[in-house]
C-alpha cells in the first residue's frame, strides 16, 4: 500500500488536547513539516507558553522547555547563548502570553535581534482561561471581561504586533498569515519555512503572526470561526510581509 499522506515524525502520538476546530493543531503540524523539510528536527529546541499551547511539550518530538507566562523570548534568548549556532530555537506563544504579559520580553528579544523564530498565535482571546479579553481582541468583539464588546474608551485599544515590531531595527523577518482556509494555510506554511530559513542563515529574529480561531470561546462552530477570522480578523489585521531584511539585502 502506498502512503500518500502521513503525520510528520516530529509530532508525537499523544492526542492533542485542543478543542475541535481549533487551529493550534494545524500550526503544530506546519512547524513539524517545515522542520522536517529543513532537516532540523533533531537539534531543535522549542519553548512553549502558558495558555492553550501549555502542553506543547507533549506534542513536539524535540527538546522543549515550558516557560513562565510571557517569558519564552527571554528563555529562548538565553538558550541561544548556550547552544550551538546550528540549533534551531523557536517559541510558540499566544496573544495573552506574547502581547500582554510578555510584551517586554517580546519587544526586547526583537530589539536584540536574537537569532530565534517566534510563532505568534493570535486568536484575539484568552482561550485556556475561558474567553477573557486579549490585547488583540478587536473593537466590538465580545469576551467574558468585556461582555458588551470591546470598547476602546473603556477597555483600551488592541495592538498590531507585526506593524509595531516592524518599526524596530532588530527583527530580520516579520509576516502575518492566517489559518482560515487551505490557500491561507499553505501561505502560513511558506511563511514559517521562510522564518526558519532566516534563522538557519543566522540573519536574526523571525516573527510569524498566525491569525487563528477559538470556536469554543467565540461560541461558534468551527466553520463559523474560520469565517470570522476571514471576514473580521483579516481586514483588521492585514496579512503580508512587514519586514524582510533578506529582500533589502538583494
Amino acid at each position, binding site marked *: 500500500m502506498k502512503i500518500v499522506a502521513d503525520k510528520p515524525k516530529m509530532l508525537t502520538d499523544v492526542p492533542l488536547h485542543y478543542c475541535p476546530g481549533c487551529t493550534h493543531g494545524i500550526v503544530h503540524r506546519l512547524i513539524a513539516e517545515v522542520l522536517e523539510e529543513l532537516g532540523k528536527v533533531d537539534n531543535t*529546541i522549542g519553548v512553549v507558553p502558558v495558555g492553550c499551547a501549555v502542553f506543547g*511539550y507533549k506534542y513536539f518530538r524535540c527538546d*522543549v*522547555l515550558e516557560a513562565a507566562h510571557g517569558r519564552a523570548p527571554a528563555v529562548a*534568548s*538565553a*538558550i541561544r*547563548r548556550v547552544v550551538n549556532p546550528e540549533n534551531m530555537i523557536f517559541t510558540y506563544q499566544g496573544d495573552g502570553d506574547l502581547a500582554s504579559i510578555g510584551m517586554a520580553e517580546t519587544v526586547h528579544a526583537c530589539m536584540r535581534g536574537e537569532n530565534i523564530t517566534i510563532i505568534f498565535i493570535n486568536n484575539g482571546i484568552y482561550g485556556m482561561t475561558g474567553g477573557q479579553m486579549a490585547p488583540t481582541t478587536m473593537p466590538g468583539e465580545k469576551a467574558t471581561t468585556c461582555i458588551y464588546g470591546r470598547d476602546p474608551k473603556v477597555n483600551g485599544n488592541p495592538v498590531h504586533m507585526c506593524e509595531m515590531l516592524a518599526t524596530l531595527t532588530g527583527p530580520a523577518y516579520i509576516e502575518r498569515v492566517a489559518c482560515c482556509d487551505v490557500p491561507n494555510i499553505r501561505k502560513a506554511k511558506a511563511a514559517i519555512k521562510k522564518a526558519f530559513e532566516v534563522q538557519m542563515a543566522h540573519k536574526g529574529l523571525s516573527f510569524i503572526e498566525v491569525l487563528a480561531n477559538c470556536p469554543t470561546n467565540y461560541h461558534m462552530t468551527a466553520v463559523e470561526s474560520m469565517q470570522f477570522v476571514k471576514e473580521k480578523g483579516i481586514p483588521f489585521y492585514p496579512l503580508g510581509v512587514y519586514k524582510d531584511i533578506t529582500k533589502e539585502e538583494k
Partner: protein
Amino acid sequence: MKKLWKGNEAIAEAAVAAGCRYFFGYPITPQNEIPEYLSWRLPEVGGAFIQAESEVSAINMVYGAAAAGARAMTSSSSPGISLKQEGISYIAGAELPCVIVNMMRSGPGLGGIQPAQGDYFQATKGGGHGDYHPIVYAPSTIQEFVDITYNAFDTADKYRTPVMIIGDGMLGQMMEPAEIPPMKDTTSIFQKYNKDEWAACGHSDGKPRIINSLRIEPDENEEFNIRLFKKYEEITKNETRAEEYQLSDAEYVFVAYGSVARICKAAVVELRAQGIKAGLIRPITLYPYPTEVIASAAKSAHVKKFITVEMSMGQMVEDVRLAVNGLKPVEFYGRCGGNVMMPTDLVKYVKEGK
C-alpha cells in the same frame, strides 16, 4: 595569592572561577559591580552576558541557560529580587541549578540603598509561590563570599536546585584581601552532573528532554512536592553550616548572620574584656537553618539567654525561638531602614538590657 577585592567584584570573579559562563541581570544598587564586571569578563572566557529588560526577564534567562545545561547566575538587590520570585519558583519547580545573589537593601517598597536584612523571610521561606526553598548562604567576609560562590555552583548542580547567596551593601561595597581559587574545568561539569540526561540543548537521539514545572494531575504534583522535600531533608543533613564563636562557656549568646555577625564578634571581644562571658552562633546557611547548633546551646547549663541581632524588625529571631523551643529566653536587638548597630550598642544592651 591574596588581592584586595571589592565584595561584588570578588563574587563575580569567584563565579567565573567556578565555571559560571552566563549572567543575566538588571541594574540596581548596591549590586551593580557584579553585572558590570561580568559584562566584560564573561566574553573573555567564552561566556555571555545580557543586560536584560527587567529582573523578570533576567531570571527567566537564567531558567533558559540552566535548562540548556550551563552554569548561570543572576544578582540583584531587594526590590529586584521580589521581581525574580516568579522565575525562582519555576526554577525550583523545574529542578534547575543556578545561583542568585541578593545584596539586600532596606524596605519595604523602594526603601533605601543602605545595608539591611529584611529579606530573610523571602529568602528562606521560599519567596515565590508554592512549596519550595532555595539553599541560602549568608557569608560575612569577602573571602567567605568567594569560597561560598565558588562552591555554590557545585551544590546547585548536585541537588539541581536554586542557591541564593545573600549579603548587603556593606559587604558588596567593602574591600578586603581575598584569594580567588583556581579556574574549574568547565568541560567536565556537563558530564560530571549527568546533564546530558535532562538538559534541553538540542538532542538528536530521539528522546526529547523536557524542562517543565507543570504537573496538572494532583497525584503527580503531590508526588513531586514530596520528592522535593526529601531532597531538602538530604540538603539539611549534608549542607547545614554555622560558625560557633566563644560558645564553650558563653552565658550570653548572640545569634547573627552576615555583616551583623562581624559586629557581634567585636561586641563579644569587648564584653569578654569586661569580664562578661558572651559568645556567638553565626548561621552560614540560613536554609537549611542550623537548628541543631542552637538547640544544643540552649541545653547547655551555662547559657543564660540568646540575643538575636538583625538589621530588620526581627525575622530570623523566629527560627531562633523555634530552635531554642522555650528552654531559654530569646531576645531581639535590631536596627533597620539602613541603620547599622555598633558593637558598643550591643555591649550596652547586654549590660543594661536595652
